[in-house]
């Protein structure tokens, strides 16, 4: 089942030219509200893509569709060369190598930092009985150790995750997603609520990861977008408005209109709503 990607994993070359994720004609309808309408969206291997757009543009829904949390009414979602994601559940998609970091930090508050990472490490089976008898292998332990270094929580390995600061929880969750060894990382507003310094560090972390992984980042903070972005996709009302390098996007009159225009509208409409 998780064969396609796995088998070709060492041979990045083999699929290098293709896309890692391919969405075609995707429509998501929430009781009449079209969160995504006929969306086409492609990300290539080793790409760091930033998705921006005003509230309600469908950014989070896009990640929901890729990670299996929302099922589209129509369209195709293909991972790697030919892995259809639509019939799969969230945990199966995660096992294929798509990791997701949520907007609000979601870690296991009653477990230690180490245990949080231990549960996340990629393993052949995450079924109940395999897990019941599982023992930490040396390879796993080494991976967790190096993960702790990457996210800067080496000294807090024994702390309850619930006792970490907001920024540390965000980093822990990023670490957990990384240990899943995903080919594609989905990151939803990673720097929301972070200090300037944490934001800077998070940007560097994401950039360093882009060598080995494909990453889709959703972000509001334009400062941060400028720091990390190579290619930016602008979503508006469930479809792609435009796509391109960050400088070009910033000066695009349509983008300015939806951002500025929206703001003006909101002010005028505020009493009516």
């Amino acid at each position, binding site marked *: 089942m998780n064969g396609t990607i796995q088998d070709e994993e060492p041979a990045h070359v083999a699929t290098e030219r293709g896309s890692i994720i391919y969405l075609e004609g995707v429509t998501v309808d929430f009781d009449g509200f079209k969160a995504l309408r006929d969306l086409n969206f492609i990300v290539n291997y080793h790409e760091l893509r930033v998705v921006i757009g005003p509230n309600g543009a469908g950014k989070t829904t896009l990640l929901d569709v890729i990670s299996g949390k929302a099922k589209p009414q129509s369209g195709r979602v293909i991972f790697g060369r030919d892995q259809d994601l639509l019939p799969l559940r969230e945990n199966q998609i995660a096992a294929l190598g798509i990791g997701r970091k*949520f907007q609000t930090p979601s870690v296991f508050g009653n477990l*230690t930092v180490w245990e949080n990472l231990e549960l996340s490490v990629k393993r052949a089976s*995450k079924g109940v009985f395999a*897990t*019941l008898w599982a023992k930490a292998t040396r390879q796993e332990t080494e991976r967790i150790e190096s993960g702790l270094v990457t996210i800067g929580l080496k000294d807090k390995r024994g702390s309850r995750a619930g*006792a970490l600061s907001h920024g540390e929880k965000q980093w822990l969750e990023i670490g957990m997603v990384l240990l899943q060894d995903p080919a594609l990382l989905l990151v939803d507003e990673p720097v929301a609520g972070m200090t300037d310094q944490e934001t800077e560090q998070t940007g560097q972390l994401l950039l360093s990861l882009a060598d080995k992984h494909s990453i889709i980042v959703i972000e509001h903070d334009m400062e941060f977008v400028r720091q990390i972005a190579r290619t930016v996709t602008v979503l508006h009302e469930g479809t792609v408005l435009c796509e391109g390098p960050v400088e070009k996007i910033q000066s695009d009159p349509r983008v300015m209109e939806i951002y500025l225009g929206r703001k003006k509208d909101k002010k005028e409409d505020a009493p009516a709503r």
Partner: protein
Amino acid sequence: MKEESINGDSGMRGEGFSFWLVGFVLLIVLPLLNVLPGTDSPLHVSDFTLNLFGKFLAFAILALGLDLIWGYTGILSLGHGVFFGLGAYAIGMHMMLSIGTESVYGSALPDFMVWNQVKELPLFWKPFSSAWLSVAAAILVPTIFAAIFGFLAFRSRIKGVYFSIITQALALSAWLVFNRNETNLGGTNGLTDFKTFFGFRLSEPGTQRTLYVVTVFFLGGAYLLCRWIIKSRTGKVLVAIRDSEQRVLFSGYSPANYKLFVFVVSAALAGLAGALYVPQVGIITPAQIGVLPSIEMVIWVAVGGRGTLVGAVLGAVGVNLGRSILTNHFPELWPFFLGGLFIAVVLFFPDGCVGLLRKLGGGWSSRKAGEGLDKPLATSEPGSR
């Protein structure tokens, strides 16, 4: 700030010592005090008391399972009385059949069937003439039933308060079904007037003492089983489900399978508890398996301390001990006392007696117990679909 997690290994030596000490007292000391001193000695443990403790310890087995699913995984089941009842009725049916012609009406059929003018033993009663089949059924029937019910509920992603409500509905419907005379399970009066179990006369103190010892053994086994699950990586996944089910799902685990597993294990333990309860108490009726007893079971765990195995055992024994003392002296006060106790737990010590002791004892006892959850349940996942 406490640094250890729920699965922390700190204080394990102390825990092992306590386990063997409690085991020694329950398994050796109490039965010896029952047998050796004369009935007028102050150290004498009467047959009645020993039998009472046997009943409490059977309840403690159920509480362990309930704690596994509620305390650790955060799923509140209000239907565990049903699984308890299935286990109890399986053994009860066998003991009904082994009464034979000693019954009031002198028929090989159970008395209530004669009374209800049932001429022939219903087909589903037949396997229960075998003692071993009945023992197997006492565990397997609740297990299989929980597997089917849990599969449907968890696959449909029924969570939180919705799960509690449907399990309560299950308890109510089981109560209704068992109450009907047409079900051929003795109706409102249930099954009683048992004479023998595995050929031993239940009226003999020796038989009751043996049942008590068997119950202690099974309680010890159930405790070790639960402890093993909790300390395993699967146990960590269970706690993780309580903390953030979404993260578990997106980490590649199927929460539905883990919930099904823990639900089935706790149902099997409830069935075992019922099987040990019925020969010691001598009666099982629908009133003991319905909505109210199911809620009471939850109160045991809450009072003892959710998310600690010791708490579940303490709660089951303590609340039931309180009940038998209070109902002896002030029978009409018990419901108020139980209700008041539950409110007190919710308001003042959400982590139960174990949580309270830990708070009072400060660092020392927290290291000693070392397996509790720090977070009160109220802050865990709000019920949502």
